[in-house]
């Protein structure tokens, strides 16, 4: 139960002026007459994992797309780095929820990295000098052995880690993760969250995660935002999961919460 001591305390808005921080101000997305979400104000601190939870259709994925600038939106995104000088728009890394193309196509992990990092056409040239850099990127997510593997031969968890490694090169200020609903087993999920914890500490990176796994969120997040067309609740995992509104929205959470807190304790014990 000493979760609050272990984690950085989830923040209120005032200290955003001093620290490295991303402010999402008055975000709203409207398509025609339909409001996807509105009045979203969140402060995301570097070195913290902010989890966004909410029911289907709450506007979570659209919020990420709005932050990416892919969906037209109202409101502003401010990024302030640790030295307090405005850097305007942060470098954003994005880990997608699903792949659009046919993963069984003959594309190796190295091919994908080269396509992202090099201007030379992958089908024509090879870039030997790029290989060490890619190996280093993959090592960050414990996936260096996957470099020559076909994308289609990766498990759900491995694919997710490779996509994370892609999003981390170049190193972003703000990392957006849209967690897959299915396809990643429990061990894979555990490893993924451990890697996120490492990143948060080592790189002092701000991470926004859309998650459907409330147990994992309760154990690993520093700040939890409950969304349903707008921000319903915003606070530490303890605050959010003990709130009646969370229980109301998720219905059957009460049982899951207790076990989440138990395993959260184990997790913290191991870290310490």
């Amino acid at each position: 139960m000493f979760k609050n001591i272990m984690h950085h305390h989830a923040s209120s808005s005032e200290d955003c002026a001093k620290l490295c921080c991303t402010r999402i101000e008055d975000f709203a997305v409207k398509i025609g007459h339909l409001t996807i979400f509105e009045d979203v104000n969140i402060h995301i601190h570097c070195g913290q994992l902010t989890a966004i939870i909410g029911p289907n259709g709450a506007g979570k994925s659209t919020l990420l797309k709005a932050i990416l600038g892919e969906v037209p939106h109202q409101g502003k995104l401010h990024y302030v780095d640790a030295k307090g000088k405005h850097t305007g728009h942060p470098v954003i890394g994005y880990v997608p929820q699903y792949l659009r193309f046919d993963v069984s196509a003959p594309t190796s992990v190295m091919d994908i990295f080269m396509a992202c990092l090099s201007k030379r056409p992958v089908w024509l040239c090879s870039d030997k000098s790029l290989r060490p850099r890619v190996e280093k990127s993959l090592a960050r997510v414990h996936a260096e052995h996957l470099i020559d593997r076909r994308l289609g031969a990766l498990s759900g968890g491995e694919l997710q880690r490779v996509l994370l490694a892609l999003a981390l090169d170049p190193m972003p200020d703000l990392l957006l993760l849209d967690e897959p609903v299915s396809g990643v087993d429990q061990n894979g999920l555990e490893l993924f969250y451990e890697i996120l914890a490492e990143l948060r500490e080592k790189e002092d990176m701000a991470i926004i995660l859309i998650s459907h796994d409330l147990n994992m969120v309760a154990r690993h997040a520093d700040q939890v935002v409950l969304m349903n067309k707008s921000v319903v609740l915003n606070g530490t995992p303890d605050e959010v999961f003990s709130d009646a509104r969370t229980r109301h929205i998720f219905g059957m959470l009460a049982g899951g919460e207790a076990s989440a807190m138990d395993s959260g304790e184990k997790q913290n014990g191991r870290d310490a």
Partner: protein
Amino acid sequence: MEMIYSFMDMVLPFEWASHMFMKHALLAILLVTPLFGLLSTMVVSNRMAFFSDSLGHGAFTGIALGVLFGVVSPLVSLVVFSILFALCITYIKNKSTASTDTIIGVFSSTAIALGLMIMTSGGGFNKFSSFLIGDVLSITEEDLQALAVVFVLVLAGWAFLYNKLLVLSINSSFARSRGIATFWVEGLFAAILAVVVSISIQWVGILIINALLVLPAAAARNVTNNVKQYHVVSVSLALITGVSGLILAYYFNMAAGATIVVLSSLVFFVTIVLKPRFIR
């Protein structure tokens, strides 16, 4: 051109290669099939077979409009119309929430219907029937020169575009986060496809053109593990089946396009059997 012809006489001392129309046909195949091999890798990986099929259907309207106005040659009107058609589908597909299948289906059937309407308006559809099956003997020296230009442009475009397309094919939001102008990349790819389809239609035929955009890569993906192998095998298969299809068609007096497609599909079935040996 004379130099090329005498060179061909020297290296190809065969009966079939002595005819001028066969020289033209062979050159056309050597220029176009590698392009089909290259483009088909992305068509197959991105599940765009239905889209490329619709480009062939769009050709109905393109050809019909060209004949209707009669100001420019059918080929020019076909190329211009196909590019507009492809860009239009790409744009609406990105704007609309309806499924891609539905959008392409709507465009495709509209283009066929509109084309047939115009073509049959004078009562004579027969003069268009050569476009359905294609005629490899119809290739002229001017066509070959146009093909050579397209060949160079497509290669350059593919070198410039491929990495961006591959990133985009992972996920469009991911591509946006890496600063890729998704609509333009997608649109340019669609336009390249449209150009290659429309310049080949007169000798391959509307009915089977899509097979050339699907089969080489469909076969290659069964036996390859990365992008380079994929391209090499896909282009080689397109070339080999192209040339041997032409020769077979000459000796048995069949439509060359159809023969090439049948050979490619045979190769495809062989690669399915071989798949477990090659895939890691």
